[in-house]
């Protein structure tokens, strides 16, 4: 399993890549609903099986546990200027840097029509993992230095 973060001028993305059998928990919730886009494979989100391409809404106050039934990829997208970002990124300085940075938070290489990441990997962290808000802060800070 691997979790990547990325951003552009308007949006912040959390991309989770699962091998079959991997489990990821978001041990946090938000005050407004947000979407999990299942972009590849089949994944159980809070015990509801969803196949790509599917959108699953996470309601306010609900934490999330995802279990990959196949190799799978999910994307959560947020607007950088939304007040939800204050809940996702607790450190005000980090959030200010995130909003103002031109970094994509992820390695990219130039191509003739823009920039592109290397192939994202499904193999990385533990197969049973929790993405906490402090983990997210650390990933953002790491990305800002790219």
């Amino acid at each position, binding site marked *: 399993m691997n979790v*990547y973060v*990325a951003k*552009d*001028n*308007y*949006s912040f*993305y959390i*991309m989770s*890549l699962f091998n079959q059998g991997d489990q990821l928990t978001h041990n946090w919730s938000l005050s*407004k*609903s*947000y*979407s999990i*886009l299942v*972009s*590849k494979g089949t994944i159980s989100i809070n015990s509801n099986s969803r196949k*790509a*391409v599917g*959108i699953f*809404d996470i309601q306010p106050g609900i934490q999330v546990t995802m279990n990959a039934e196949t190799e799978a*990829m999910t*994307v959560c*997208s*947020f*607007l950088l200027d*939304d007040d939800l970002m204050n809940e996702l990124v607790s450190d005000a300085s980090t959030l200010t840097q995130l909003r103002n940075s031109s970094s*994509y938070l*992820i390695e*990219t290489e130039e*191509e*003739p*029509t*823009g*920039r*592109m*990441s*290397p*192939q*994202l990997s499904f193999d990385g962290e533990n197969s049973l993992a929790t993405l906490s808000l402090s983990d997210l802060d650390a990933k953002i800070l790491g990305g800002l230095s790219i």
Partner: protein
Amino acid sequence: MRNAKIITCQDHLLIIIESTEQDNEITCVNNLTGKRSFPAQTTAIAVDGKFNHFYEDGESWTKHNTWNTPRIFFKTSNVSSGGTSETANTRMIAFLPKKREVLTEWINTVGENQVNVAIDTSRDSHVTIAEGTAVRKMDANTFVELENSISDDIIFQ
């Protein structure tokens, strides 16, 4: 077959194009201009399979490379970009922020009414702005269309 769908989610408009067979075009064409460029800086992911990537070089297209997935792209505005499926199952998903100043740039591609619907949609409802199915086979090396499309790739509601 090539399936396309534009749908709203909480904060974004998603453009989803997937091919179920080799050599289908997986880029989005502006119906008015025929251009394959993104009218605003756009982030997209490629998931599943492999795809061929092309860029416009004067009057013709040049093949940049064949890429495996998944990858994330940050496309420069108004630079033409082409793609075909190298494998049977290939999927592209573009994320457009539900911001009027951005979606206004997409009016010629998505349609004015559709842009207004996307912006006005509440975050908890998912509105399908457009969807359609077509075949658009392209040469994997030259990005020249091999046969005529059955219909427009996007059918507006």
